[in-house]
């Protein structure tokens, strides 16, 4: 089985970011915007991981037969671990804000909310 070229991962990750960006820019529903943000975040994480990929190397866990020379770059993986946690935290915060907004205004359409806020 031959591995696909690295540019496929880049292309995919950047596409995800752009899809997310599109959602943020044009969707009016707050939930859809939050979903777009999550998609964007996934894309960024994928991009980070694929930057650290070294063709043909294995996971960066030092064990029998696998030394530092045989592993992929471990730093992006550490970064992504952090980023995932941050992403979950911000999503949770944003979702709870969305709940409060819905309770207060009775709608999730951002145009409506702006109009109601005055």
């Amino acid at each position, binding site marked *: 089985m031959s591995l696909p070229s690295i540019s496929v991962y880049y292309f995919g990750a950047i596409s995800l970011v752009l899809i997310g*960006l599109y959602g*943020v*820019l*044009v969707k009016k529903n707050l939930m859809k915007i939050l979903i777009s943000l999550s998609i964007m975040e996934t894309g960024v994480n994928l991009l980070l991981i694929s930057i650290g990929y070294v063709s043909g190397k294995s996971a960066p866990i030092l064990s029998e037969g696998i030394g530092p020379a045989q592993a992929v770059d471990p730093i992006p993986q550490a970064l992504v671990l952090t980023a995932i946690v941050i992403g979950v935290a911000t999503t949770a915060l944003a979702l709870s804000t969305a709940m409060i907004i819905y309770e207060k205004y009775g709608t999730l359409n*951002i145009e409506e909310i*702006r109009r109601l806020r005055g």
Partner: protein
Amino acid sequence: MMNEIAVMLFTPLIAGILAWIINVKGIRETIGVLGALVPFALLVKEYSTVVNNLYNPPTYQLTVSGFNITFKLGTLNWYFAAVASLVGVAMAFGMISTSRNSYDWLFAMMSYTGVLGVFLSWDFVSFFLLWELMTFASFMMVLKRNRHESLKYFVLSVIGAYAMLLAIALIYAKTGALNFDDIRHAMYLDAIMGGMSKSETILIFALFLTAFGVKAGAWPLHVWAPGAYSENDQSYTAFFSGALSKAGAYGFLLLYILMMVKLYYVMGPFHGHLTFAYIIAWIGAITVVVASFLAVLQEDIRKLFAYSSIGQVGYILLAFGVGTWMGFAGGLFHVLSHAVFKGLFWLVTAAIILQTGKTRFEDFGGLAEKMPITFAMSLIAVLSLAGIPPMAGFASKWLIYEAAIQAHMPLVAGAIFLGSALAFAYVVRFLYAVWFGQRPSDLEDVQEAPLPLLIGMAILAIPNVVFGVAPGLVTKYINKVLSYMLFLFGERKVDVSIVTGSYYKLVTPTGTYNALTVTLMLVVGLAIAGLIYIYGAKARRIPVTNTYQSGNPVTEDYNLSIRRNFYRPLAEALEFWLKYSFDRFYERLAGIAEDFADWLREGFYNGNVQAYSWYLAIVLLILALWGVL
């Protein structure tokens, strides 16, 4: 020698800081006056050194963070510094009476240091730094009294400062020099080899014109001056208008010293004049006419003298713009006489305001009996400003007229004749409205001005008379200044002698003025007039309006008296021109900028999160296209 320049420069600043810290009434005044006296005393002491080393002036160099700072005490620098410190001493005496707190002392003395530094610097590093110190300190003086006027002063000063900084940067980029001597050499070589393009040279010229024009209050950059001069401690204004505005005039001379050859090569002659100088001359002429007309129409003493200050500095620019040695001589003399008579005027104004608390003409009258010494001082100032012999103001204006006529500039000469006539019109009004006529009942218990203020006035009144009766004292020294300037232009060590004659007599290629004869004739004439007044006059009471209405029927709403609407017919005649005001033009410009900014803010900062996301996305796209990402 080295230390003396440093002491001279920084004593006022240190004295100001000490006065500010100690802040005990009595002590702070003593420190301030001492701080003002030290530079003056040192300059007097250095006089012989300066004059005897005409072509090798005392120099003081030091290195500050990689920059070589040079101070020079050539005859030119000494002249300006001595004039400034003379007014500075008078200011310090005046401030004993008028200043209310240590804040005034701190910033007044700080600007004193700045002004001296500007006149003694011989490189652009220290010149610019001390220029900014001077501007900052004078701005702080205005700020405390009127925020709106200080803002106007600040904005125009900042425009001037950045123009100067840009010009210095351009010169440094092209020549690599900051020292005046090096710049002059580089410009001279550049004129022959043509390293700097025409547009760059003209740009540097225009930038310097803006920078120095703001400080000198040249039209149309004068709009800060009326407010800044009047909304201030009037004793400090004596220094502000008497000495600080001369920094701009000095800048124009510096322009000649640094760039004359280069500017001549680039801009060429115009009808037998240097084109760049011709521009300066016309700016001066317009300043004289516009400011004098506006001064005539003012109803407030402070505003009147503020506009008159602008007009008189216009004379100096005009004289320098004539570009002949005669013009320089007249301009330099007028630097001195304007400093002494306008300084005196402001101290008189300070005394009047201090003793009466009023500033408008309609509230005054008959003060000559109540404040006789102040009245005598103001009479000297009036005669000097109006250019009546035997006062310093006559000698200097006479030289400027001679210069303009000799240089075949009839229109420019006409502008100063007009300016002089107007100057006479407004000082006469000041003389009559404030000192003569009926005294309003609330001025019955006005006292003579306090002693320190009178001392300050005397310090400025004496040179007015002495240099008026013996103008040769000044012109002899001015010849030395001109010799030094010639040496700076062309490196030939020739003693220039433009205005010859004795101490009492000025002789120029076209005319002679014998101050002593004129004085004697004046004294005899006054004696005869006095005798006629004492023995021959029959007093007759007439209604006050008879004097002013010139036979017009008096109605309620067209009742002109010297105190109220005296020049209303002139204002009506000028109605068309008075519609155009650069002051209002700038205000409108500021209003438009504000509206535009409001529109931008409302359009873009609209509270729509998605709009902000769009901005972010667009910026990222631009960066990506640019190749940053």
